[in-house]
């Protein structure tokens, strides 16, 4: 992390002192602080008390180094309690080559620490005013996977094409993400002492907006692999995990109303970990549908239904509970929620957001592999969040 922070500082200082003209450099940032409470679950903290662990700070810059070449970087500081690892991080720092420019086809190649451009809100999930709710639907934007899903160190391609059928955008990326100890514990459990590593993350997506239509449709394919090196002092074993996803999404945008939905099927394969011969291969499913209503240019409301199951053949978690000898309650096999909220733009740069989620189940509460049945002891729980965002 120190190396990362040093690299960021050096890169941003280099950008700051570069001789480029004002038109060739762009700066943006945001400061967001909120209050969040999730009584009955360990979503934010173990006590369920009101917490200020809803902090998001970011500073980014984009520099034109030649007509077709840019360097973009962003540092963020996040504190989300149990939701994801807290602290300063290099969110992205990449070289952007705009290598094809014609009237109906434009294409870019990105190299470095790249953002996940594949899902509807994946590239800016930490930027409060670019997402529709303070807490994104966990079926798709599972917070425990945040650091892994937000981007990777590698290469990405984006091509945009226009023809009589409409606008097409194709994205492809391959890379790997460093997995911190805190991130490993969020995924596997607090009892581990070995080292989790991501071998690769490979994604492709295609978006289509029919000509002048209010609809847009997308499809995403994801394949990733992780390996775990167990330490000698723990009861777990060396293992391989692979996660693959197929996702479909749609958006329908009207003047006042906006509807969006993403659905996914995720295959989780575990080879090892609990014993050298342990094998698990299961298909999870999930998705959300969200409606937004812009009552005025300043005031926006939203309502959302979110649903996910860890194993599509065990939708109410009975089998999960039986397999654990009753130690893991059935409600860890799924999570479904109803949410509603609003955001109000006090000025061009200041926004206040508030929302409530009513949740059943603990299937999207970390850790994933060794569930925390002590903290997450309620089948039904709520989430309240209030956040003030300043942007510049």
């Amino acid at each position: 992390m120190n190396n990362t922070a040093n690299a960021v500082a050096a890169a941003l200082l280099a950008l700051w002192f570069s001789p480029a003209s004002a038109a060739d450099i762009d700066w943006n940032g945001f400061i967001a602080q909120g209050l969040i409470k999730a009584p009955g679950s360990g979503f934010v903290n173990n006590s369920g008390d009101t917490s200020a662990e809803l902090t998001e700070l970011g500073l980014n810059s984009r520099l034109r180094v030649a007509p077709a070449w840019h360097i973009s970087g962003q540092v963020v500081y996040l504190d989300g309690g149990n939701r994801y690892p807290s602290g300063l991080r290099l969110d992205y720092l990449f070289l952007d080559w705009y290598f094809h420019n014609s009237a109906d086809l434009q294409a870019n190649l990105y190299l470095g620490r790249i953002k996940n451009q594949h899902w509807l809100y994946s590239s800016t999930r930490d930027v409060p005013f670019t997402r529709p709710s303070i807490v994104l639907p966990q079926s798709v934007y599972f917070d425990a996977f945040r650091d892994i899903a937000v981007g990777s160190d590698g290469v990405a391609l984006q091509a945009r094409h226009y023809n009589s059928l409409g606008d097409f955008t194709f994205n492809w990326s391959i890379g790997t993400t460093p997995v911190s100890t805190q991130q490993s514990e969020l995924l596997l459990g607090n009892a581990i002492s070995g080292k989790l590593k991501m071998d690769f993350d490979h994604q492709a997506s295609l978006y289509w907006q029919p000509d002048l239509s209010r609809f847009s449709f997308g499809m995403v394919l994801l394949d990733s692999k992780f390996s775990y090196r167990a330490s000698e002092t723990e009861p777990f074993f060396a293992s391989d995990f692979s996660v693959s996803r197929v996702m479909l999404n749609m958006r329908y945008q009207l003047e006042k109303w906006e509807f969006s939905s993403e659905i996914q099927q995720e295959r989780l394969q575990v080879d090892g970990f609990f014993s050298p011969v342990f094998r698990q291969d299961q298909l999870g499913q999930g998705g959300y549908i969200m409606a937004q209503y812009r009552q005025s240019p300043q005031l926006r409301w939203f309502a959302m239904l979110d649903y996910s199951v860890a194993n599509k053949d065990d939708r109410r978690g009975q089998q999960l509970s039986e397999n654990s000898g009753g130690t893991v309650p059935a409600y860890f096999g799924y999570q479904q929620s109803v949410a509603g909220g609003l955001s109000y733009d006090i000025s061009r740069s200041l926004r206040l957001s508030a929302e409530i989620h009513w949740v059943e189940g603990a299937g999207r509460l970390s850790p994933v592999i060794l569930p925390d049945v002590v903290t997450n002891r309620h089948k039904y729980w709520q989430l309240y969040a209030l956040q003030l965002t300043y942007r510049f």
Partner: protein
Amino acid sequence: MLAIVLSCCAFKSAAASTVVVNNSVALDKLTQAQLRSIFTMRQIQWPDGSPIYVVVLPDNSPEHQRFSREQLRLFPYQLANIWDRQSFSGTASRPQLAADQAHMLQLLRTTPGSIGYVEQYQADPAVKEVRIE
């Protein structure tokens, strides 16, 4: 009656946006799809490879709202969301913001490669109108 018709049409033509570029831009027409690619920052270079500088008015200005709906066929919030997502994921710069139409014209006159829009356009030696087909 004739006066009413005339005033209505005069008003209509006065309110329509004209797409204007700096004189350095070697183009006199664009398709609506190209215009949308440029203002959504997907196309960032002119055909000769020089950078495109997009200039816009504030989201809440009536001129911007008319331009967005009529010329781009996008609601202003869609355009703002696209710019936010791009500028915070590092994939495009934000367009340059002009305070009002006079400022817009001043920026278009002085910035090579710039494109913007004005209502009630009057011929100007430093900028030129681009036809949208």
